[in-house]
C-alpha cells in the first residue's frame, strides 16, 4: 500500500501530520500502526493543553519538527511542544466587532510549506507565520468582511501556492477560491464559485456558494478538488431561479491557472442548505473490473457519490440516510426530484434536515480496509421560507430556523466501490466530530458527549474510549515522536494526546 501512496505522490513523512487531510488526497489516514486493535485498550492520556479560549474547537493540528501547531476559536493559535504539550509561542489577531459569522468564531487549522505556516482569520484574511517563532511574515485580505465575507477553513498548499476558501453564504456574498504565492502573499488566481449564468436577474451577485472546507489535490492530474456551499438566500429560491451554478457542487480546478476543468452539481437550485463541502476524497476504485481515478463524497443531501475525477462523470450514487426529496440520481448525476418538497411559509417537513445526512465533519479513507468512514445523522426538519430583502453584509437566509428533529447519529463505513454500508456504529446524538483511520486497523472519532472512541476499522466494534470532558467537534490526528505513536484531538477547550504506556 505504501508503494501505491508514493506513486500517487504528495504524501508527508509518515511520522508527521502536515496537512488538513494528512495527504493531499484527503484520506485522513495515518500509516502508523504501533497503536492497533491488539493493544488499543491500553491507550492512555499523555498531556493536555488548556487553551482557556471558549468557543467551538474545530482544528486539525499539524505536527512536525517536534512541535504541534494548533488553531483555536476567535483568531487564536498556539505552538506546543509535541512531547510535553508546553506552549512555545502563541498568536492572536484582534477581531473587529462587526464580523458576520453564521456559525461561531471557529477555525479548522493551519497549512504548511517548508517552515511557513498559513491560516485564515475570521475577518477574511490569510496570514503567513514563521513556524519557529510565530512571527507574521505577510498578511493578505481575501475580501471585505463588512460585506459579509469571512474565513474559517484550513488552507491547502499546492506547490508554491496556498489555496484558501471563504465563508459567508448566509450574508449575500459571492463565493470564491483563491491561490496566493507562498512567499509573497500575492494573489495568483481567483475562481468564483458563482457563475453569472443559471441565475435569474443579477441574483448571482449575492449567490453564496462559500468554500468553507479544505479541498484536495491530485498531483498526477494537477487538479484541485473543492466543494461549494449553498446558494443564497438559502430557503427562498424565487429570486434566484435556475440551477444556480456552481453552488452545492464539486469543482475540479487547474492548480496553475485556477480554471475550472469540470464541475458536478449535486443539488441544483438547492433550497435546504445542503452544502457540498464534505471532504472530496481522492482514491482509485476498481469498478466493473476497471480501475477508475475517483473522487468520493458523502454529500449533505443524503447521497453518497463516486465520480470519475478526470471528467466529473458520476460512477455511482447511493442513499446512505433517509431521503424524502429525491427518488435517486439519474445517469447524468442529476437528482430525480420529488415534487412539493420546497420550503413553504407554513413549513414543509423534508429529510434529511438542514444539517444533512453528513455535514462538514472530516472523513477518512483507509487503504488497508478499502473503506470510507464518515459520521451521519438520520433526521428530518420543517423547512420554512421567509421573504427577506437583501442588505449588504447582513444575514440573508430567507428563512426562519426550524429545529432539526432530535435524531441519533452514526459512524458509517461504506465500500466506495459499491456505496454499500459495511458497518455502522450508532450514537445517541447527532454527530459532531470528524474521523481518523490508522494502519493499526482503527478508526478514531469523538462524540457530542465528549468521548474519544476507537472502533475496529473492519467491524465497527468499539474497542476503546476516553471521556475528555468536552464536546468533540474536531477530528483526531496521529503522529509519532521518539518512537511512540500518539493520537491527538481537541475536545472542549483542551488539546489532548494519547499514547501507549512507556513501561
Amino acid at each position: 500500500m505504501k508503494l501505491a501512496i508514493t506513486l500517487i505522490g504528495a504524501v508527508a513523512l509518515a511520522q508527521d501530520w502536515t496537512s488538513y487531510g494528512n495527504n493531499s488526497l484527503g484520506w485522513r489516514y495515518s500509516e502508523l500502526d504501533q497503536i492497533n486493535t491488539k493493544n488499543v485498550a491500553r491507550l492512555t492520556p499523555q498531556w493536555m493543553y488548556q487553551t482557556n479560549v471558549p468557543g467551538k474547537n474545530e482544528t486539525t493540528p499539524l505536527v512536525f519538527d517536534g512541535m504541534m501547531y494548533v488553531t483555536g476559536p476567535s483568531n487564536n493559535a498556539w505552538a506546543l511542544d509535541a512531547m510535553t504539550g508546553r506552549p512555545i509561542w502563541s498568536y492572536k489577531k484582534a477581531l473587529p466587532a462587526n464580523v458576520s459569522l453564521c456559525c461561531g468564531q471557529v477555525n479548522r487549522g493551519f497549512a504548511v510549506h517548508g517552515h511557513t505556516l498559513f491560516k485564515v482569520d475570521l475577518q477574511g484574511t490569510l496570514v503567513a507565520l514563521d513556524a519557529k517563532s510565530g512571527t507574521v511574515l505577510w498578511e493578505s485580505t481575501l475580501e471585505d468582511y463588512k460585506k459579509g465575507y469571512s474565513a474559517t477553513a484550513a488552507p491547502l498548499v499546492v506547490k508554491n501556492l496556498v489555496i484558501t476558501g471563504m465563508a459567508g453564504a448566509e450574508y449575500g456574498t459571492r463565493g470564491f477560491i483563491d491561490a496566493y504565492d507562498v512567499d509573497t502573499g500575492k494573489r495568483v488566481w481567483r475562481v468564483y464559485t458563482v457563475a453569472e449564468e443559471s441565475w435569474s436577474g443579477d441574483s448571482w451577485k449575492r449567490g453564496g456558494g462559500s468554500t468553507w472546507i479544505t479541498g484536495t489535490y491530485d498531483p498526477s492530474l494537477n487538479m484541485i478538488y473543492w466543494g461549494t456551499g449553498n446558494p443564497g438566500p438559502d430557503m427562498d429560491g424565487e429570486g434566484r431561479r435556475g440551477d444556480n451554478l456552481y453552488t452545492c457542487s464539486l469543482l475540479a480546478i487547474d492548480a496553475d491557472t485556477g480554471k475550472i476543468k469540470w464541475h458536478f452539481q449535486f443539488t441544483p437550485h438547492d433550497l435546504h442548505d445542503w452544502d457540498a463541502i464534505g471532504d472530496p476524497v481522492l482514491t482509485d476504485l476498481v469498478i466493473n473490473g476497471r480501475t477508475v481515478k475517483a473522487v468520493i463524497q458523502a454529500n449533505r443531501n443524503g447521497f453518497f457519490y463516486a465520480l470519475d475525477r478526470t471528467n466529473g462523470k458520476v460512477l455511482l450514487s447511493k442513499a446512505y440516510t433517509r431521503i424524502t426529496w429525491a427518488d435517486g440520481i439519474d445517469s447524468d448525476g442529476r437528482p430525480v426530484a420529488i415534487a412539493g418538497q420546497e420550503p413553504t411559509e407554513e413549513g414543509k417537513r423534508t429529510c434529511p434536515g438542514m444539517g444533512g445526512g453528513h455535514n462538514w465533519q472530516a472523513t477518512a479513507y483507509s487503504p488497508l480496509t478499502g473503506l470510507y468512514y464518515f459520521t451521519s445523522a438520520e433526521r428530518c426538519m420543517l423547512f420554512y421560507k421567509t421573504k427577506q430583502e437583501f442588505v449588504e453584509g447582513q444575514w440573508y437566509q430567507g428563512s426562519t430556523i426550524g429545529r432539526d428533529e432530535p435524531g441519533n447519529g452514526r459512524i458509517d463505513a461504506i465500500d466506495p466501490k459499491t456505496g454499500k454500508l459495511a458497518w455502522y456504529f450508532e450514537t445517541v446524538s447527532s454527530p459532531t466530530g470528524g474521523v481518523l483511520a490508522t494502519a493499526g486497523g482503527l478508526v478514531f472519532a469523538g462524540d457530542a458527549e465528549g468521548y474519544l472512541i476507537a472502533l475496529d476499522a473492519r467491524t465497527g466494534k468499539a474497542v476503546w474510549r476516553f471521556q475528555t470532558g468536552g464536546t468533540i467537534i474536531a477530528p483526531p490526528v496521529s503522529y509519532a515522536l521518539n518512537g511512540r505513536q500518539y493520537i491527538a484531538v481537541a475536545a472542549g477547550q483542551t488539546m489532548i494526546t494519547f499514547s501507549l504506556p512507556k513501561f
Partner: protein
Amino acid sequence: MRRAIVFFIAAVCYAQGPAETGRWTFRILCAPCHGIRADGGRGPDLTLGTFSAGDSDADLIRVISRGVPGTEMAGYSGRVTDDEIRSLVAYIRSAGHADKAAIRGDAATGENIFWNKGGCGQCHRVGTKGSTIGPDLTRVGRQRSIAYLNASLLKPDADVTPGYATVTVVTRDGKKIVGVERNFDNFSAQFVDLSGKYYSFVVEEVISMKREPRSLMPSTYGQLLSETEVNDLLAYLNSLRGGR
C-alpha cells in the same frame, strides 16, 4: 452554511404597515423559540396579551432590546433597529388574541389538585415544595402556553422536555430499572427512578440500556381528572410565575 446559531438580522422592509413588517422580522428572529405564529413553543406564548416581563409597549421594547437576564431570551438591540423593534411589538400585539377565556379554571382549586388528588408534587417542584424527579414548574406559567400545558398534562409524551427522557436498563441479573434521564451517552446511563433513587451504569455492566423520547408521567390525567379539574390545574400552572 451550517445551521445558524447566532442571528445577525437584516432589515425587512415591506411596506404593508408595521405589524406586517414585524411579522417577517419575527419569523426570522423570534419564531425559532416563540413559534411561527407567536403562540409559543420552547419560548413563551406571546398571543395571550400578558407577558412575563411586563405588559406595556415599553416593557416589550425593553425585553426585545436587552433580553431577560437569567433566561434564554437574548437582547436584540444592535442587531435590529428601533423601528424594527417597534414593528415587532406591533406584530406581537396583532398576533395576540388576549384570550383570557383560555384560563377558565380556578387557580386555588388547581393548587389543591396539584398537591393532593393529582399527586404532581411527587415528581415536580414548585418553589421549595415537591420533588425534583421531573421538570421544576416554579416558573412554568411564564415558560409555557396554556395550550402547551394542556397537551403536556393530557399527553405527556407529546413533547418531552430535553433531558427528561425515559431510560431503561436491564442489569446482568435480569432486573429492569426504569427512570428519568440525568445523563445518557454512548457508553453510560445515569437516571433517577420514581422513588428518587439515583443509578449509574456503564454499558459493559448491563445487558442493555436505552433512552426513549417518552415521559414517565402518567398519561391518565384525562381520566383521573374532570374537565373542570383540568382547567383548575391549568389555571394554577399558569399562575406559577417564579419568585418567592
